[in-house]
């Protein structure tokens, strides 16, 4: 087995795309996810049903299928998106469904009594959600979101199937030329291990900094 140092540099070219895609899809996921969670907890029945349906679909079907629907299927309906946009969209919609569930759990973990206390002081439902529930829910959900971030870094690799040149895509490209698939992908694997390690550490540090005594998170990270 031969390893070539130049691969490290060549693969690194795929890094920005991997990180970009992950970052953007998580951003979409958080925005949409919070909205979906609020809809499920506080919405009226039609909204609740809609949010549940969305979540059910995106959690119950494989990511690859979702990506292909966006990239290969949408053109059937006249919508043609670039590979990059498709990737971010599919990943974003997917992660939003999971994030919605984590956030919903966090909202419900805030003790109901606090909502009563807020209302008894004269706060409107909106105020109670904004000043009492949300600040706590955001803190409680952090470990799950960190987890999700790491997960998305790994699953972002799926965009190579629509010919995007992220870390995975670069790997495939290099390997297709020199046919040393195994060796190249060992390096790819090491790259992912490194990224995951670095990002987890950073996230853990962030969590520690904003911790409030007594406001512990219920779940444990993966």
């Amino acid at each position, binding site marked *: *087995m031969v390893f070539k140092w130049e691969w490290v540099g060549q693969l690194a070219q795929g890094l920005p795309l991997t990180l970009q895609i992950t970052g953007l899809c998580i951003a979409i996921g958080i925005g949409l996810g919070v909205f979906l969670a609020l809809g499920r907890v506080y919405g009226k029945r039609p909204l609740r049903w809609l949010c549940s349906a969305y979540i*059910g*679909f995106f*959690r*119950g*079907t*494989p*990511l*690859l*299928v*979702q990506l*292909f*629907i966006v990239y*290969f*299927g*949408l*053109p*059937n*309906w006249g919508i043609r998106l670039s590979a990059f946009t498709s990737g971010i969209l599919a990943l974003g919609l*997917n992660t939003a469904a*999971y994030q919605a569930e984590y956030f919903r759990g966090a909202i419900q973990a805030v003790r109901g009594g606090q909502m009563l206390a807020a209302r008894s002081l004269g706060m409107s439902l909106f105020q109670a959600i904004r000043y009492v529930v949300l600040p706590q829910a955001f803190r409680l959900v952090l470990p*799950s979101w960190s*987890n999700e971030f790491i*997960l998305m870094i*790994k*699953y972002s*690799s*799926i965009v*190579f*199937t629509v010919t995007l040149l992220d870390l*995975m895509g670069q*790997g495939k490209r290099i*390997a297709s030329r020199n046919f040393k*698939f*195994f*060796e190249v*992908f*060992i390096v*790819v*694997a090491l790259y*992912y*291990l490194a990224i*995951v*390690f670095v990002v987890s550490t950073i996230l853990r540090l962030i969590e520690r900094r904003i911790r409030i005594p007594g406001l512990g998170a*219920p*779940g444990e990270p*993966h």
Partner: protein
Amino acid sequence: MLRASLINIQLLVALIAVGYVLGTLIALMQVYGGRVLGTISRLYEWIFRSIPALVLLFLFYYGPPRCGVRISPFLAATMALGFRSSAYQSQIFRGAIQAIPTGQMLAARSVGMSRARAIATIVLPQAFRLSIPGWTNEFSSVVKDTTLAYVVGFNEIMRSARIIMDSRYDLAMLAFIAVALVFLGLTYAGNTLMGGIERKFRIPGLQMPGAGARDHSR
């Protein structure tokens, strides 16, 4: 295409089996092994959970030929996904073992059982039951990962959908929506089945605290 989905199911069963055997082994290593075995198993878990599934698939598909072994895509996929699943399953099983009060082990030893026997007859049966919820969760979670086998190219459901698309471009959306529906159906059927199994094996009072397992598969 439906025929192809059967292959996915086969893959699912196969990889779960691999995952289960390995997972149990790794879990036992972590809990009862010494420091060396413990570190090895922790490292194993970390590696197989941090590397993307797709990368693993490529490694297991292209690796063996390098060493001169020819391997079918199906087997490669089973191994790749199976090893990956074992990393998660070991965590489930480990949690289950650790959820059993240590008093039980003490009681077993005090009636004269050897460590091995105590583990086999007292700890494992309970751990098995405790891990069922987590295990069923893993099962329904991993069913979606079988589509990733598409990248190593054998005739599972995604590939057949792709084939349809290549010949009739205008049917692409339909084809993939169909796949989606198949999986929704599978997930639903799986959950119901798992719920039933869970109920069948339940022992009142024997529950794992906070078995909030996460979906690590997409």
